[in-house]
C-alpha cells in the first residue's frame, strides 16, 4: 500500500504541451508512471512523445482512458478553470503544480469543491511520488516535478509545504538505505486543497507507513492543527522540521503562504506545538531523517 496513488494509478496531465508540463510529463513516463492522457484545448487528436493521446477536454480524456488523477501545469490565470474542469470530469485526485495563482481564485475553487468527491493537492507544490521497486525507484507513480531517482520504496511517509526540503528529507532517507511509502508536497500557498493533517491521517491509516516526516514553515496554523491531532491520535513516530525561524515578520519568504503576520504563524509557535505533541524536532534540516530513525 501507499497513500493517494499507487504504481498502477492512471494519470493525465493538463497542460501537457507547455514547456514545463511536457518536460515533467516526459520524466514521469521515463520513471514508468502510468501516464495515459494529456489535455491541451485545441490539440486533441495529437500524440505526446508518440505514445500518449492528447484530448481537448478532461472529460474526453477520462472517458477514453479511465484516468483517475490529473496533474495541472497550466499558467496561473487559467489554473482555477483547469482545476474545476477536472473536478467536473469526476477525477479523484487533482495535483496542481502551478505557482502564482491569485488567492481569491483558490478561495472560489475551494468553495466550489465542497461536497465533491475530488481531492486537491497544492497548488504551488512539487506533487506526489509513490516509489516503485525498480532501479532508482523506477516503476513508481511520479506526479509533478520531484526528481524520481532520489526515492526508494519503503515505509516512511513524507509530507511538506516545500519542494526542495522534501527532496532533502527523501534523499537523507534513501542515502541511509531507508525507503518511502509516499511523499506528498502540499504546496506553499495560503489556500491549498490538502493540509498537513489530511495527509498525516492517511499515513496513520496506511499499514505500509511506519514513520512520518512532516516539514512545515512559517505562516498560518496548519502545522499546529496537525500537531494537536498527532498528540491525541497518531500511532506512528513523527519527526518534524519548521523553516523560517529567522524570517523577518511581515515579509513573504518566496512562498505566498510563508509570512508571519500580526504575530501569527511564527516558527517558534510551531516548534513548541511539535514538542508538546511528542514530535521529534530536527534542529536543522540536515537532521530530519536521523531524528526520525532514532525514534523508530
Amino acid at each position, binding site marked *: 500500500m501507499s497513500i493517494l496513488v499507487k504504481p498502477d494509478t492512471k494519470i493525465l496531465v493538463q497542460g501537457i504541451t507547455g514547456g514545463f508540463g511536457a518536460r515533467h510529463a516526459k520524466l514521469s513516463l521515463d520513471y514508468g508512471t502510468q501516464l495515459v492522457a494529456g489535455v491541451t484545448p485545441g490539440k486533441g487528436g495529437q500524440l505526446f512523445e508518440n505514445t500518449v493521446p492528447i484530448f481537448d477536454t478532461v472529460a474526453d480524456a477520462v472517458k477514453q482512458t479511465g484516468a483517475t488523477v490529473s496533474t495541472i501545469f497550466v499558467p496561473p490565470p487559467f489554473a482555477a478553470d483547469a482545476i474545476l474542469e477536472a473536478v467536473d470530469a469526476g477525477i479523484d485526485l487533482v495535483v496542481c503544480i502551478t505557482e502564482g495563482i*491569485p488567492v481569491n481564485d483558490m478561495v472560489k475553487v475551494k468553495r466550489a469543491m465542497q461536497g465533491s468527491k475530488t481531492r486537491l493537492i497544492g497548488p504551488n507544490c512539487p506533487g506526489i511520488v509513490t516509489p516503485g521497486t525498480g532501479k532508482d525507484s523506477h516503476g513508481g507513480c511520479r506526479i509533478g516535478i520531484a526528481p524520481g531517482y532520489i526515492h526508494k520504496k519503503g515505509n516512511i511517509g513524507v509530507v511538506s509545504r516545500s519542494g*526542495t526540503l522534501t527532496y532533502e528529507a527523501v534523499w537523507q532517507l534513501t542515502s541511509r538505505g531507508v525507503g518511502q511509502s509516499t511523499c506528498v508536497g502540499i504546496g506553499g500557498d495560503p489556500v491549498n486543497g490538502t493540509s498537513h493533517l489530511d495527509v498525516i491521517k492517511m499515513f496513520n491509516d496506511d499499514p505500509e507507513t511506519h514513520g512520518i516526516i512532516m516539514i512545515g514553515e512559517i505562516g498560518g496554523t496548519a502545522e499546529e*492543527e496537525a500537531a494537536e491531532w498527532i498528540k491525541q491520535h497518531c500511532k506512528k513516530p513523527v519527526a518534524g522540521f519548521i523553516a523560517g*525561524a529567522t524570517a523577518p515578520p511581515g515579509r513573504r519568504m518566496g512562498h505566498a503562504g510563508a509570512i508571519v503576520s500580526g504575530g501569527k504563524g511564527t516558527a517558534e509557535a510551531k516548534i513548541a506545538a511539535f514538542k508538546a505533541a511528542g514530535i521529534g524536532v530536527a534542529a*536543522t534540516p540536515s537532521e530530519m531523517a536521523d531524528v526520525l530513525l532514532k525514534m523508530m
Partner: protein
Amino acid sequence: MNIHEYQAKQLLKQHGVAVPAGDPCKTIGEASAAAAKIFGSGHKLAVVKSQIHAGGRGKGTFKSGFQGGVKLAKSADEAVAHARAMLGQVLVTKQTGPEGRQVNTVLIASAETIKKELYLAVLLDRANSRPLIMASTEGGVDIEEVAEKTPEKIVKEHIDPAVGIQPYNARKVATALGFKGELFGQACKLIIAVYKTWWECDAAMVEINPLCIVEGPDGKESIVAVDAKIGLDDNALYRHPDILAMRDLGEESPLEIEASKHSLNYIKLDGSIACLVNGAGLAMSTMDIIQHFGGNPANFLDVGGGASKEQVTEAFKIILSDPNVKAIFVNIFGGIMDCNVIATGIVAAVKETGLKLPLVVRLEGNNVAAGKKTLAESGLTIISADTMSDAAQKVVKSVA
C-alpha cells in the same frame, strides 16, 4: 505589494467608502493648493500626513529634528509649513529602522471632529480559506494588543465566497459595533463597500484603523475611514494594471528591485553571510542553519528550480552589492537541475565578479560528482562541504 495611505483611500473611495476630503502633494505648490481647498470649503482643521510604507508615523522623528510625521494645522499657512518640513526629509519611526524613509508625498486632508474610533478590516482566514471581516469597538490602537488582552472585543464575520457579502453579514457587524438609528444603515453600506474593495482589488488585507464616527460642521454625524492600509496579492496584480501603477519603487530596497528583474526572489537582511539557494523552503532553512551555528544571514535568496548560468551570475552580483556581506554560502539541491550546470555557473560568476570573499558551496543531487569536479578544477578557492550542517559551520567559521 503595499501602497500608500492616500492610494488606499482612493481605492476605497472608488468603491463607495467615505474618506476625509484631501489630496496627495509632492510639491509645496500642490500643498498650498490642497490646503487652500480644505480651508476654503469651511473646514477649521487639516491634517498633514507623511506618506511612507511604515507605521508609527505620528510618533516618528525626522532626521532634520522635526517632530512627528502626522501634524494638525489650524490654517492653510500652517499646513504648508508642515508640508515644507516633511517633503524630501527622512522620517524615522519604530517600523522603519534607524535608516528611516524619505517622505516624497504628503497627504493633506480635512481633520474631522472625532466622536468615536472603531476598527474594521477584511482579510483571508487561512484556517478555513474564507474571507473574514474583523471589527472592534476599540479603534485607533494596536489591534494585536486588543486581540491579546480583550479578545471578546473583536468581532469576526466570515463571508461565503460562493455568494459574496450579504446585507445580513454587514448588519451583524454593524450591530456588534454598536451602530444605531441613522448611522446603522450608513455603517452597513460602508462595511459592504470595504469588503468589495478587498475582493475586487484582490487585496491581501484592507485595514481601516481608525474608522471614525465624526461630527461635521453642521453637527451631523457620519462614518469616515480616517486611516487606511491596503496590501495586495502579488499573484493577482496582472489583472489590475491600475493598481500595479501605484507601486512606489522608492519604498523598496534597490537590491530587491534589481533581483525581481531577473526573476530572483531576494530579501535583504542585516547579517554578514549571504546565501544563494534553490527553493523557498531550503532558502529559509539555510538562513536558519546559519543562525543555528552562530552566524547571521545577510539575505534570503531563492534562485528557483530552473536557474540558468546568467541568473546565478546576477544573483552573485546582487549579494555582493551588499557591503555587509563577508562570506557566501551556496546551498543547492539539484533535483532535476544538473549540479554541473550550477557549478559551471558559480565558476563563471566568481570569475566575472572577481570574488575575494570566502565561498562555501554545498551541492547535492543530480550529477553531483561532475559538479564537484568542476568546482575543484576551477583553480578557485572554494570551500566545499557535503552536508548543510557542515557547510553552515564552515561559512560561520570563515567570518569569525
